[in-house]
């Protein structure tokens, strides 16, 4: 089963510091070694939002929230159960501190 985890900063998300980068690097390395992590990367805060309404496509430039500049990212993991994905998400949040993550199963893979 594949899951996509996306994480975003919230108002109370602390500024990333050296410790966080080290911890996160270790975590990513561990997941790669376990054969779990398929792909990962950071995401820009804003981006472009595209909406299609009645055939009309609208582009909106970010940022979309008032959240301050902070890390956002995604990870594509291959695990045996939803619980394993949730457990990984839990460990991820333990490292980043406050923030929010979404875990969604990827179908058709």
């Amino acid at each position: 089963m594949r899951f996509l985890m996306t994480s975003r900063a919230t108002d109370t998300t602390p500024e990333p510091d050296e410790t966080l980068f080290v911890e996160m690097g270790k975590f990513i390395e561990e997941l790669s070694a376990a054969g779990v992590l398929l792909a990962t990367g950071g995401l820009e805060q804003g981006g472009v939002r595209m909406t299609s309404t009645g055939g009309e496509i609208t582009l909106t430039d970010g940022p979309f929230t008032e959240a301050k500049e902070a890390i956002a990212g995604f990870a594509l993991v291959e695990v045996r159960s939803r619980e394993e994905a949730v457990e990984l998400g839990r460990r991820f949040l333990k490292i980043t501190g406050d923030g929010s993550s979404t875990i969604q199963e990827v179908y058709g893979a």
Partner: protein
Amino acid sequence: MTTGEHRPPRPGAGGAVSRTIDAVWKLESAKIIAGLTRLVRDVGLAEELAQDALVAALEQWPASGVPDNPGAWLMAIAKRRAIDHIRRARRLESKQEQLAHELDQPAEPDRDDVLRLIFITCHPVLPTAARVALTLRLVGGLTAAEIARAFLGTEQVIAQRIAAAKRTLADARVSFELPDGAERLSSVLDVIYLIFNEGYSATSGTDLIRLDLCLEALRLGRLLAELAPREAEVHGLVALMEIQASRSATRTDSAGAPVQLHEQDRGRWDQLLIRRGFTAMLRARDLGGPPGPYVLQAAIAVCHAQARIADDTDWAQIATLYAALAQLLPTPVVHLNRAVAVGKADGPQAGLDLVDGLLDDPALRDYHLLPGVRGDLLVHLGRFADARLEFERAASLARNAAERDFLRRRADQLPADEPVTATLGGAAHDFLARDDLDAQTVRSYGQTMRRLCVALGEKLPLTALTADTVTRTFETAWGTAAPATWNRHRATIRSFGAWAALDDLATGLDRRAETRRAVSSIEMVELDELCERPDIRLRDRVLWRLLHESGAAIRIVLSLDVDQLDLDDRRARVAGTWVSWRAATARLLPDLISDRTRGPLFLADRRPAPARPVEQADLCPDTGRRRLSYERAEYLFKQATGERYTLRGLRLGRGR
């Protein structure tokens, strides 16, 4: 837990917590068991201690919540149990202080511990099935029930297999060290690839692919690649599995029937996995060295992945890679795949010629892909009736339901010849259905006729049944069987021939001398005398000694290549089995090999006539001489012994 918030576990929320614990266990158990094995030096005990920790978690976490670092929590509990156990056992009295010190060290797990654990679960002292089960259990963290489900077995059988494996490891006092030598590593790679293949092309059952097993093997492979990054073959295996797995969504259609590679929707191949495969392949290439079997197989997979459409496939390159692979891994299946590639690169007739060379191989007797491939080549040659027969034969041999249906459909799509009134299957049925045969005769005749039908196809027109085809079937099926067995089947054919008015069916089948003693009575003394004779050549002396000491099949021994020999350990790995010898052979071998490093061990006296095509693998690249044939070897031995013995007698005489 599909909607709503993930609440912290409370008492009474047992189901969710136990699923969480199960997830944590699967993520952590390999590290925990590996770390414990380092302490107690016994995987069986280590697993019990780890299980104790798991039980503790099941008792405590529902009330206390999952700890911040669940892996460390489990490890701490397990280590405490380990100390208790060791104290109770009152072993190593004097070392207890040092031990306690060791146990006090921070629980930083040594990454090599997991690697050591994998080497133990894939240890050659264990039978293959046990290696698979133990690896999935201890490294993959699967329960016996989960393993049983994946392999369509019963939980009890798997549990017993795991228990027996642990006992074997304890009895053999297998050490918790990183072995050196490529052989142990290739055992690990083979176990992982076996797991992958069981998932990728399920040999039995109704589903063609069992993805959970593929995934498990991929995880093990990726893990191994991180733990042993300097081994090109590990990356080769990972590349092979990633690329093969990239096609899993397209290998079956919506009804579950197999879709062949050239008909797959390449747009749906998983590009992420393909890219990972390419990356692994690059890592393997960067490490250099001569490519091993997994790197070569991965290179073949890369060729397929690089072709945007099936017609772009570089078959010439694939045929070359298979030729190289056949040198390292001269298995019938590799030869068959090579024939497929050659058929695509050089035309179907070239492929068919190679396949026909495999028809007599006993190892492929019941392999459904041999007639399947042959049928495919025949279709391309426009020989539809022959092709139909082959697909029907392939379908009757296939064990997987989806594949069987697929092959049957391919047969049905082909135009049939004018209806055949008398077929082998029909005649066999009528022959056995007579009422003048007693039950035992029917059973005995039935065995012969069934084998004949499986080998030649039930739909074979009776008119196409010749002494030649019968003889070939006999050689493949019972060539190495006891003379009495051979003669019993021969009697059936004679009776069948007389009944069906095909009198000469058994002309190619000599009656074999049944008194075992007469065949096997070449005693050591006699062999010694024979080998002392000045007119006997070194090559023949080595062959006879080797047959006598190894008891291996004659064709297997003749197929040995120089580079397969392990002179120190007095054994050779060939066609998936071991051939081992003793002192008399070992004394002679170095002289026979001389300074050769490759090519067939036993060479014919002369070079082949230019007009006779010879398999590359059967030619000595240095002298141009071909491999000694069975017929020639048999002739020489009969000559030397005044027609009193055959080579088979040498095998039977071993151990006396």
